[in-house]
């Protein structure tokens, strides 16, 4: 059994940890004081780079690398803390904001010191009224105690933190959507480049970081890089010679929900397997795992054959899925995958910002196709059509054979792949929302195809037994291509 490794959440349940005095008793702000007393700003940036910290918001991009793109000579530079947690299945930031807001403030202070930033906006989800209230109160206290404002602790640093409420749009969690929204416009993402690190909010260099990423900073500074890198696996990228280290260091706040006995947030070292996580969360509610969504609803689904996949950034990417924001949703044998996909597609059809045509139109189309299948009105007739492929003469053409296809399933895949192609990983949209739509649509359909076919054939939703509903590994496109990375020490 894997043990919980509480670092960010260590003092979460201490009564009144949201007040300055109690937070102070538990080493609060000492890490920031250590940073300004012992290190130069560049040292901190180097520590973060060496720690291998990857952004916890979804993309898993190296935080140190992101910071290195920020031009140091253009001022002012802004920090935007992304607290717009709206990915279905993710709820770890909410607890930090509601219970331990001073930890976030300390993380922000360290980031501001390292990057020479004076103004921070915390973009907080409109629905997080309690979280915003708690954070506002904590910020007020920090101003009173001299940790924010002009000349912080006599160091000459000026640091301000402001909270900025969102208003219920999922797309504002995307970094450029967040920036647009912060500027008082519709939250429609921008083209990249220019990246926010160069030209972000108010056309100035901007560092956008998730709450969880910033909360890691005090511990990296306080306990040192060596302590931090001991947690979680470091893989070797053998495509390069000599093999390049690919760190998945630190802990992750895994949010587990759905069919488990004890849903909640578990802080664990990166790199445990799906099966282990379900065990930590009190075991499965039900008989058998049917499917697991590993990283929020945008992530491609995992079948019960893939439960040995390790839940870290590299392993999941190589398994053709993603860790994303760490929102794990477990489904047992009673769940119907068509129904689950319908729910998720309704979400995306509602949340598409409407900027790019493939997404604005394609997402409702995907929803409508899944709805049609779920209603039992999926195109029932299987069409017999010439099978195209490599012919005897070695050319592409009519092979003379015929194949049976389900028209709606082909249509579903075609529409989804035209929003964003999951095989080539190219998207026809400005932001990655496109891929967040087609990833679940295509992966659910390909991995649980028998259930989709049954729904069309029978004219109603049919929940098949797990073994029958799942495509076997030899036909599973992702399983075929998946690659289990080796830990660096092993090589």
């Amino acid at each position, binding site marked *: 059994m894997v043990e919980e490794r509480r670092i960010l959440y260590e003092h979460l349940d201490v009564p009144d940890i949201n007040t300055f005095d109690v937070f102070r008793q538990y080493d609060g702000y000492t890490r920031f004081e250590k940073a300004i007393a012992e290190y130069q700003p560049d040292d901190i940036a180097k520590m973060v780079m060496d720690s291998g910290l990857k952004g916890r918001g979804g993309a898993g991009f190296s935080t140190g690398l992101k910071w290195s793109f920020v031009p140091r000579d253009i001022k002012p530079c802004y920090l935007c803390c992304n607290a717009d947690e709206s990915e279905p299945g993710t709820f770890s930031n909410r607890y930090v904001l509601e219970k331990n807001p001073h930890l976030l403030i300390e993380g922000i202070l360290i980031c501001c010191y390292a990057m020479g930033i004076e103004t921070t906006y915390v973009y907080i989800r409109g629905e997080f009224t309690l979280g915003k209230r708690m954070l506002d109160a904590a910020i007020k206290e920090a101003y009173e105690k001299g940790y924010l404002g002009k000349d912080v602790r006599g160091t000459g640093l000026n640091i301000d933190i402001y909270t900025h409420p*969102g208003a219920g749009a999922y797309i504002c969690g995307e970094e450029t959507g967040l920036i647009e929204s912060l500027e008082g416009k519709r939250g429609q993402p921008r083209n990249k480049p220019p990246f926010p690190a160069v030209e972000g909010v108010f056309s100035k260099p901007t560092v956008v970081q998730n709450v969880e990423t910033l909360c890691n900073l005090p511990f990296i500074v306080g306990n040192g890089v060596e302590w931090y890198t001991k947690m979680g696996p470091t893989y070797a990228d053998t495509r390069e010679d000599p093999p390049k280290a690919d760190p998945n260091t630190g802990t992750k706040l895994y949010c587990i929900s759905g069919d488990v006995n004890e849903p909640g947030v578990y802080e664990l070292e990166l790199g445990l397997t799906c099966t282990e996580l379900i065990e930590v969360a009190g075991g499965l509610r039900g008989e058998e795992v049917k499917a697991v969504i590993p990283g929020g609803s945008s992530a491609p689904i995992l079948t019960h054959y893939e439960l040995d996949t390790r839940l870290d950034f590299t392993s999941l990417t190589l398994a053709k899925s993603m860790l994303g924001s760490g929102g794990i949703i477990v489904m047992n044998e009673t769940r119907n995958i068509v129904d689950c996909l319908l729910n998720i597609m309704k979400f995306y059809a509602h949340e598409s910002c409407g900027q790019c045509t493939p997404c604005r139109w394609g997402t409702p189309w995907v929803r409508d196709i899944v709805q049609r299948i779920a209603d039992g009105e999926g195109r029932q007739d299987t069409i017999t059509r010439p099978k195209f492929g490599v012919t005897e003469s070695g050319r592409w053409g009519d092979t003379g054979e015929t194949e049976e296809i389900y028209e709606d399933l082909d249509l579903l895949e075609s529409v989804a792949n035209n929003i964003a192609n999951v095989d080539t990983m190219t998207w026809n949209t400005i932001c990655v929302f496109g891929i967040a739509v087609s990833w679940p649509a295509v992966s659910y359909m390909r991995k649980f195809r028998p259930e989709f076919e049954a729904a069309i054939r029978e004219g109603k939703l049919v929940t098949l037994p797990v073994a029958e509903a799942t495509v076997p590994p030899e036909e599973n496109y992702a399983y075929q291509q998946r690659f289990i990375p080796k830990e660096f020490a092993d090589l």
Partner: protein
Amino acid sequence: MSDERIQIETPFAFNEENQREFDELIGRYPVKEAAMLPTLHLAQRQAGYITPAVMKYVAKLLEVTVMKVKDVVTFYPMFFEEPVGEYVIRVCHTLPCALRDCKVVLDHLKAKLETDIASETNLAKGTTADGKFTLMKVECLASCDVAPVIMINDDLYKNLTPEKVDEILDNLDNL
């Protein structure tokens, strides 16, 4: 329709408390337009919903066109352009809540309040006749571990069952 529009056009201005809050807000941003979302939240709290008069007022405060304010208001689901009930009930219906039977809660609320579910373009559909409640479905409220959840105005209610919903609504009446 046109008559209703004229009735809505009662002029709007911040009360003293909100004006103070606004003055503090506006100093946070290098450009005034950036204060749009917090200002609209303030205005909605005071007026109940965003009327054309509110949009005009906000546009004037932030030195942008009214169209720009309308643009923003129509984009974000948390801003209402129609009157809503005293209590706005938001029921989460995204996958983790759906796996924990949010539909039972939703159906129970529908039956108890004798109302339909509001859509974004027709809030009146989900508002009770006495104007006390507005029932709407929302996407993930980021509390999937305690699903199913609902939000009533600013408060989150967790691990719901029809009995718990009854209890919560009864207590609202007592407040």
